[in-house]
């Protein structure tokens, strides 16, 4: 899992049926100082996150499919699993 910031909403009509009813958001990965990196991912949103929110992204296929209730096969991989309130590193 990694920490990222939601940077946009993806609107798509023609898509795999697995994504029907799920919000797709672009999440830019943050480094441990809170700065944006160039790494990003289009994630399924399951926690009602919005643009600007700092979120936790789970980047693992079978867990993501379990969360959205589609066990077995399906092209789901990255999923937002939490909105971060605070990160404390060190003392």
């Amino acid at each position, binding site marked *: 899992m990694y920490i990222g910031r939601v940077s946009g909403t993806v609107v798509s009509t023609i898509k795999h049926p697995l994504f029907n009813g799920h919000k797709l958001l672009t999440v830019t990965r943050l480094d441990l100082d809170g700065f944006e990196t160039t790494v990003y991912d*289009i994630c399924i949103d399951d926690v009602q996150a*919005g643009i600007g929110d*700092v979120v936790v992204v789970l980047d693992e296929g079978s867990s993501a499919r379990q969360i959205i209730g589609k066990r077995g096969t*399906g*092209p789901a991989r990255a999923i937002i699993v939490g909105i971060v309130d605070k990160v404390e590193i060190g003392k």
Partner: protein
Amino acid sequence: MKFARVVGNLVATQKVKGLEGVKLLMVQPLNVDREPDGEIYVAADATNQAGVDELVFVIASKEAAFALPVSFVPVDAAIVGIVDDVDDRPLYDEQSVVWKVFRRPHDDDHGHDPEPKPKRKKKTES
């Protein structure tokens, strides 16, 4: 999943069993701002409706094969959706959220912060 721009078609008559009928397209990977980023590669089209110049999103690794009609095929990238629009307008001062989340405890103890924080807008007195 990442953004990609379809830049061409690929024709292959001899394909692995299970890949028959699957369209193969050349795609240019894009960064989060939809600018070209990286080398062009081949992706299978799971939507069956993507065409040249279209903005799509591509899933990589094992999940790519899951998007196709036959699940266990040798594919490592698949187009799973066509992007109509990306809305990335900032709804509020998004940087201030990041700074609130990543503020370290010792930031409050010292008189100054190691990194400058964006200043919040002062309330106008009526």
